[in-house]
Each structure stands twice: as C-alpha cells, then as structure tokens.
C-alpha cells in the first residue's frame, strides 16, 4: 500500500502529472503575459501543449560522435531530478517527505538539471553546444551562491533546515516576512539565472550561439528538456513561496492548494516582468553582477536575520 501511494505521489500529485500540467500552463501564462506587455496577441492556450506534441512526434537526430547513451538519458534524468525536488516542498499543509536539511537537498536536486544541461551540450560535440554548456557552468557559479545564501537567512530565523518548518515558522510569525524582502529579491533574480531567462539567458542566447546547449537536440528529447525547465519553474516558484511567502499558511486541504496556485502564479508574474524589462547581459557581466551585488545583498539579509534572532527576539 505504501508503495502505491508513493507511486501516486511521484506520478500524479505533486509529481510528474501535476508538474507537467501546471508547468506548461505557467509557461503559457509567462508567454502570454509577456506578449501582452509587449502589446502583442500572444499564443493561444494550447500552444505549449501543441509544442510538446509536435516535438514528441518528430524524429530524434543524434549527432555523429555523441555519446548515444548519455545523450538519450540526460533529459530523463533532468525531469526525474525536478520531480524528486518537488516531493520535499509543501503544497498542502505538510509535504510528502520531510527531514531536517531537506532545503539543502532540494537546492542540490535543482542543480542536477543544470548539470545535465552542461553534459547535454558537452556530449553534442558541436561548437555552439559546447559554448552553451560552458556558459551553463559559468553561470552556475554566478547564481548558485547568492541563491543558497538568500535561503539561509529564513532558515537561521526559523532555526531549522527543513522547508516545512520554515514555512510553518513564517505562518505563525507573519511579521517576520517583511524583513525578508532583500532575500526575496535576491532569490527572484538568481532564480532567473537558474531558469536561464532574460536577463540571464546567455547559455542559449539565440542571437549568439543559436540553441546553446540544446542546439543538437531534437524530437522528444528536446521536448523533455523544455518540460524539465517548465517544471523547474514551478519548483522554484514553490520553493520561493514556501520560504519567503509562508507556504500554505497552515490552511490545509483545497484552500491551501488554491493559495499555492495563486502565489506561484504571482511569482511567475514577477519572473515575466523581469524578463520583459531587461536586455540580456553578457556572461562576464552576469557573474560580476551576481558576486558584486547579489551575494553581498544576501549576506546583508543573513546579518539582518541573525540580529533579529539573537538580539531583538531574545
């Protein structure tokens, strides 16, 4: 019986099925909102689904000299890692699995898709793809530290490394959320880097290096990579929601799910606004920005949280 419920969790909710449907829906919302902001019409509601079906029905072409097994396995690993990360993030009042330190586990699980992007570019053996994968790796060193640092502040305040405990802490002390605004902004910007969106979409900047790390990918494999990015968007939004916006506010049941959907949608709206109002920066500028501004800001957030915890709240 336990086996069956676990399978349901992984395959349906909050696993693959939920993530895929909500991810593609958010991807559509992102594109549509961006289009409306740009005074365009934008894609119809079934566009992302149609894209996936089209890619799934296309032939998969594997370049000469590529490591065939790795080339084929990577998209599945990316999707699996994202689903696993989602299992630790609370949607309803309690997460499916939780343990002390699951926040660190989620951050590392979210690094796995990035690593697969790097390997995907590397194993394609085309110059554009290798440039893309080099940039993926360089970018990883840029955003990963500020992102992790921005998550440390709330963890210190809550006195726990578990995502559920942190969101529970904030739902009992909602005042504390106002002090997390710097960390919230830092995490929003660094997640743009993780999801490879404007202004940090250099790894697959189409004007520069065509498709970046995915240049040689086609068919269902490319579809799965795109799906994994969509799912990653949901997971990142859910993570920010749980850590900075107090998660489900202990509501439980359907209300918490609705709250989750509303809040993640709002976060994606912020992602879209950032995407719509900036130009793409160069990879060296991106790394410099992350270390010069984002990382110190995240440190300030940590200091604020330490001060709060050990002086004011004593």
């Amino acid at each position, binding site marked *: 019986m336990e086996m069956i419920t676990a399978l349901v969790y992984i395959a349906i909710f909050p696993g693959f099925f939920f993530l895929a449907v909500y991810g593609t829906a958010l991807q559509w919302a992102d594109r549509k909102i961006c289009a409306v902001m740009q005074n365009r019409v934008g894609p119809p509601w079934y566009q992302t689904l149609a894209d996936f079906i089209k890619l799934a029905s296309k032939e998969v072409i594997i370049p000469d000299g590529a490591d065939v097994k790795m080339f084929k396995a990577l998209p599945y690993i990316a999707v699996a890692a994202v689903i696993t990360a989602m299992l630790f993030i609370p949607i309803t009042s309690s997460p499916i699995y939780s343990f002390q330190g699951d926040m660190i586990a989620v951050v590392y699980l979210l690094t796995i898709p990035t690593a697969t992007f790097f390997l995907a570019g590397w194993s394609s053996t085309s110059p554009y793809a290798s440039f893309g994968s080099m940039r993926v790796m360089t970018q990883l060193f840029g955003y990963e530290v500020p992102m992790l640092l921005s998550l440390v502040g709330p963890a210190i305040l809550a006195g726990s490394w578990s995502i559920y405990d942190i969101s529970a802490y904030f739902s009992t002390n909602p005042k504390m959320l106002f002090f997390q605004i710097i960390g919230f902004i830092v995490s929003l910007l660094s997640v743009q880097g993780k999801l490879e969106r404007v202004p940090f979409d250099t790894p697959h900047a189409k004007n520069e290096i065509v498709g970046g790390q995915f240049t040689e990918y086609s068919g269902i494999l490319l579809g799965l990579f795109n799906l994994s990015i969509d799912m990653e968007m949901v997971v990142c939004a859910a993570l920010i929601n749980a850590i900075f916006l107090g998660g489900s506010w202990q509501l439980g049941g359907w209300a918490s799910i609705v709250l989750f959907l509303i809040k993640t949608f709002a976060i994606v709206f912020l992602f879209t606004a950032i995407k719509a109002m900036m*130009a793409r920066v160069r990879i060296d500028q991106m790394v410099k920005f992350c270390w010069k501004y984002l990382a110190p800001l995240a440190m300030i957030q940590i200091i604020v949280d330490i001060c709060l915890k050990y002086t004011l709240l004593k």
Partner: protein
Amino acid sequence: MAKITIPLGPQHPALKEPENFMLVLDGEQICDATVNLGYNHRGIEKAAENRNYIQDIYLLERICGICSHSHVSCYIGCVEEIAKVEVPQRAKAIRTLVAELERIHSHLLWLGVAAYEMGFETMFMYTWRDREQVLDCLEMLSGNRVHYGINTLGGVRRDINAQQAKEIIKKINYLEERTKYYVNLATEEPTVLARTQNVGKLPYKVALERNALGPTARASGVKMDVRKQEPYFIYDKLDFEMITYDSEDVFGRVVVRVLELVESYKIIKQVLSALPEGAISVKVPWKIPAGESVFRYEAPRGEDIHYVKSNGSEIPERVKVRAPTLSNFQSIPYMLKGDYLADVPITIAAIDPCMSCTDRAVVYDAKNGKTRTFDWEELRKYSIEFYKKKGVNFSTK
C-alpha cells in the same frame, strides 16, 4: 583551451540575411574575424544593362528593401544629370520628404533590431509597433509600404495634398513623443548600457582608414554627411544638424541614430510647411544622350554611390552600385577583435548591415584562405560544370 574557429552564418539567428563571419575564439574572446561576402549575389548590375531607363528604376529599387528610395534617387540623379533635366522644386521637396520618412523607418527598424540582438524584446516590439506609423505615411503617400516607386525620371509620380500633409504631421508628432521615450530608454537602462558601452570600438583614425560611412562613422566623431557636404534635392535650404558623437562604440551608434530621428522629424516639418507649388515632373526623353555621371546620396546606412554610363540609346551601358554596407564591412573585423562572442550580433547589427545591397560574387578558397573574384565567362563555365555534375545540362553545345 585551444583556439577554435566557429562560423557565424550564412545561416544564423543573429543575421537576417545570409553572410558569413569566421570567428577565431579563445574561450569567449575573439582573436580574429573575417568577413566572407557572396551568399546573396543577384547580378542586378548586369540585369540593369539589359533594361531601359524606366525599367531600371524598379529593378534598382529592389536592391534593398529598406533603402529602396535611396538607391532609386541615386540612380535617377545620375540619369537626370546626364540628360540635363531640370527637376521641378516641388518634385525635389517630395523626394526629400520620402527620403526622410525612409530614414525614420530605417532607423526605427534598426533600433528594434539592435534591441533584439541585445535580448531586449520589449523594446524591439515597441519600436516596430511605432514604425508602423511611418510605414502608413509612406503607403498613403506612394501607394506601397516598402517599394514606394515614387520616383520617376524627371520628377515624382504622385503629388501630395493638404489632407495627406496634415495626417503625416499628426503621425510625426506622435513619433516625436515616442522617440523622446526611446532616447531615455536607450541611454538610461543599465542592461542596455552594459551591452553597448565600450563594445565594438572604432577609433576616429581607424574609421577614416577603413572608410566607415554614415552613422557608423559619425559615432566615431567623423563629420561626414552628404546632405551637408554636397547637398542634393533641397537639403541646402533646410535647417538641420549633423549629429556626431565621440564615444566610438555601439552606444554612440545608438545615440547618433536616435538623434538623427529627431532631426528627420524637423526636416519633414520644414518640408511640409514650405512645399513649393508647381509641376511634379517634367518629361524626359526615352533616349538619354551619351555621357557618364556619379551621384552621392546619404542613405540611412551611409553614403550610397551610383555610377551610370549612357551611350545614347534607351539602355544604360553600365550601372555601378556602391552600397554603404560594403564600405562599412571593412571595419567589422577591427571592431570584433578583442570583444566577446556575446557582442558579435550587436556589433554586426550596429553598422546596420544590408547584405543583399552589398553582395558581389567572390570565391573563398578554404584550403589556402585566398579570395578571388570570378568574371562573367568563368562564372558561366563554373555554373555549367556545376549543373552537369548534378545531371542537368544547360550548355547549348
């Protein structure tokens, strides 16, 4: 990491037209770059020698989709000079009007393309949306959005009435407001500044040495504008400024183009407020007397030069086109050296390249890295051989 050579083009998302740039990269940095032309050769100059003067107007209009009025005006300037035709003032004013509307449409288009190459899609969409206004003006005035066909030998084909003038002024006022917004946007948005400042440096001396033209040269501080130096049409009677900027980089090129838009609005208002009365065209004979002529014209991208030689018949003996992009291409390898791979699209876009204007047939031998031009006979022989290998025999023998 060892140096690697990657091709940029002929098929590449950053290039709107086929052209090839070979980049030698050391990591992300560019050590060397070469430009290879010849993917878009259409033999227009040769075709022009087989058509009469009126047919050539429409042929040469299709050299370029964006500066179509420039090429025709330049060609017609040559022919009118040979035929010694005095063009009526009103025709000259209308030509100036269309030329400036075309400059606005080209610069707005460029601003959008530059924003797109920087990944700033919202600005790209906004500029192109506003560009529709000026395209509407051109459609109203000439009957088409792109290939206006307003010029004819000895004048223009369509007159402009008071109502049209009023509507153009209305649209120009709207664009003027929007342009102010774009000036602020392009010069204050940090991400745009990060992508344009100190990118694609072209110092004053190099710009002269490599014969840069138009906004590319003016952004390096070169004072050069045919409208000022050798005024044609009615530019000598108009009050406008030559925009130069001395930052010598892509940012300077953005600023020059955006400020030129403002100058163009000024010119259009002046032309429309003092439109001379009279006929719009005079008759030009079918046969143009023997002679030769060169005309210089300030196209949106720089100086356009046409050379026409006539032999007394109704067909020109030789038409030679020197599009501005051909001249600007010389400075691209210099600008790219030392920059990053990410800067390549915006640096190339910054000269506002128009590949199809430029192309001449050139053969690049990859084995020894030499470039040579084919002459007509050779090209013909080569093409026959090429198709023979494919099983098609075109040779008459």
